[in-house]
């Protein structure tokens, strides 16, 4: 009897551990998301909260029917009709895509170099990559404002080198945004790349050399294909948050060409249009699910063969 009881308890615990991620997602992603979906189907109102309808439990079934009847797709219609939104989405797509490519180009050599370091130095290199996280993200972005401003470090250096005569206006430009984003997200690209490259079996490179492949070609034929999972992880880890990035473009970017995160912020806090803001967020989540689903599919395929 005792053994059975204990077995039952064990099963409970196992079930909980198996379900924990799902429960977590349900409580902290799915539920808030459903609330956002609901708000996106409402209309703005000068009230507290600033939208209607609100669901009144006391009104019972009739109340529920009235509530459902009051929901509408008006916010989504606005989203489709005003070019501002589409422009913001495209801007986000452009920034996320270009930044991811730049991050990959810069991050890959760094990760590759780290993976080839003597094992004694690798933990130190790893700490150096994570070191920026010791300082607040916001402070580091403000530091970039300082560096990039008209009389800042960057222009001073360029002038000292004789590369420019008059200071360049770096701030409030796409360049500044890219600098800020690439700087901030580099560790998220380097770490997954390093994790895969570090595991590369050196014997495979010897086998390639043995079969007549010089080192540089072995890099392209063996190292790069084998690091594909790291590339996918790094790109995904950067692309998704960059797409919704708000702080960096807001502080460093041009206010005339905004990313979707900024549009969302404006709807919420400046226009107090919660339904529109929620609709923007719902569409954003929909867009970002796409690369994740593609990645999962690719992975399932890779696992199968």
């Amino acid at each position, binding site marked *: 009897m005792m053994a059975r009881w204990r077995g039952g308890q064990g099963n409970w615990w196992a079930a909980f551990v198996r379900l924990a991620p799902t429960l977590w997602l349900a409580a902290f992603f799915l539920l808030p998301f459903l609330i956002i979906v609901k708000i996106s189907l409402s209309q703005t109102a000068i009230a507290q909260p600033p939208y209607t309808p609100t669901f009144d439990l006391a009104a019972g079934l009739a109340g529920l029917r009235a509530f459902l009847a009051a929901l509408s797709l008006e916010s989504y219609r606005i989203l489709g009709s005003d070019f501002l939104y589409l422009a913001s989405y495209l801007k986000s797509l452009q920034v996320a895509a270009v930044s991811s490519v730049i991050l990959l180009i810069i991050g890959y050599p760094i990760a590759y170099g780290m993976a080839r370091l003597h094992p004694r130095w690798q933990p130190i290199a790893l700490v150096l990559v994570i070191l920026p996280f010791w300082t607040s993200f916001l402070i580091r972005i403000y530091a970039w404002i300082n560096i990039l401003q008209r009389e800042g470090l960057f222009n001073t250096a360029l002038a000292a080198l004789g590369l420019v005569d008059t200071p360049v206006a770096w701030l409030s430009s796409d360049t500044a945004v890219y600098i800020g984003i690439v700087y901030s997200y580099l560790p998220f690209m380097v770490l997954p790349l390093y994790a895969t490259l570090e595991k590369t079996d050196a014997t*495979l490179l*010897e*086998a390639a*050399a*043995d*079969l007549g*492949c*010089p080192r540089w070609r072995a890099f392209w034929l063996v190292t790069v*294909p084998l690091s594909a999972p790291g590339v996918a992880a790094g790109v995904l880890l950067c692309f998704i948050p960059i797409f919704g990035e708000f702080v960096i473009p807001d502080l460093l970017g041009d206010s005339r060409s905004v990313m979707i995160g900024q549009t969302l912020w404006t709807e919420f806090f400046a226009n107090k249009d919660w339904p529109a803001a929620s609709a923007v967020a719902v569409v954003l989540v929909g867009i970002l699910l796409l690369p994740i689903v593609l990645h999962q599919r690719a992975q399932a395929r890779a696992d199968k063969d």
Partner: protein
Amino acid sequence: MRRGFAPWADAGARALLRLQGVSKRYGDIVAVDALDLDIFEGEFFALLGPSGCGKTTLLRLLAGFETPAQGSILLAGEDIAAVPPYRRPVNMMFQTYALFPHLSVAGNIAFGLRQERLGRAAIEARVAEMLALVQLEGLGARKPHQLSGGQRQRVALARALAKRPRVLLLDEPLAALDKKLRAQTQFELVNLQARLGTTFVIVTHDQEEAMTMAHRIGVMDRGRLMQVAEPSELYEQPNSRWVAGFIGEVNLIEGRVAALEPGIAVVAALGGHFRVGATAGVGPGDSVCIAVRPEKVRVANAPAAAPTDNCLAGSVVDIGYLGGMSSYQVRVADGFLVRAAIANATRRTTPPIGWDTQVCLTFAPQDAVLLTR
């Protein structure tokens, strides 16, 4: 094994691979120590030695993954010590196989051919040929992780042979296989080598494997080649105590040369005299070692009435029944233990000679080897 194939015995023959004074160090460790070795075209050569003796390092020097600190490595007369691995006409089969996990079986076999910029049709034809050679037809599209250990081993072999190397290097190629598969694969490798005529250099720590497969064996210890010889010579004519002890079982009886007769040395050891075929260069008074294999020791039941030469009197302390053989341990003078093996030529359930029996062990002068090293 090909009959009459012995280019090493021919003074006029030129070696395909010639190592001269080759050394390799890792810090303080001398992995390969001033090593000289000739390997001939078409030979199946085995490097045999205990773990850590430098076999893999020697193979890696031949493949080009390591460069020697001293010495030269000549392939068909040309020094290749400084030639990078990707330009050597030599291929290696790795101990871990090192198959590319992202490529199919066919992709793995074609990898080396692609580096030669062969045409597509030529590559496909060669891949098909190699798949047939290792009996993996129809598995070309599989990925390495979808294969069994034995199949992976064949892919590695096919990949290494696809480029028609002058020399194929095999680092413990059978170590990862189970016993039954290993025996079968040994046989197949020997057949394959005989059919292709490619020079094989195989590394192993398994002496039985080396004995059954190779034309000649180089026995290594601590970076040095102790003896290079055909399997039978290695067993019957070891050149040192170390080699005699490393290959098979042996009784090593230390003594001193008492007298020399024509072709025979009389050795004083264990309180008696032993007549052994003399080795060139031994003189009276030299301290020597008599090496005699257990199966060459005869066990006589009754102790000899009067001690004669080549007789070790003692009592049986242990008997091991091994099926085809029985192994006897006999304690002789000074508490020295001598091992004798007797073929069980007839069916018997009790040993012909029992425990604690007083016996006399003898051996013929030509059945023992006199060692000075």
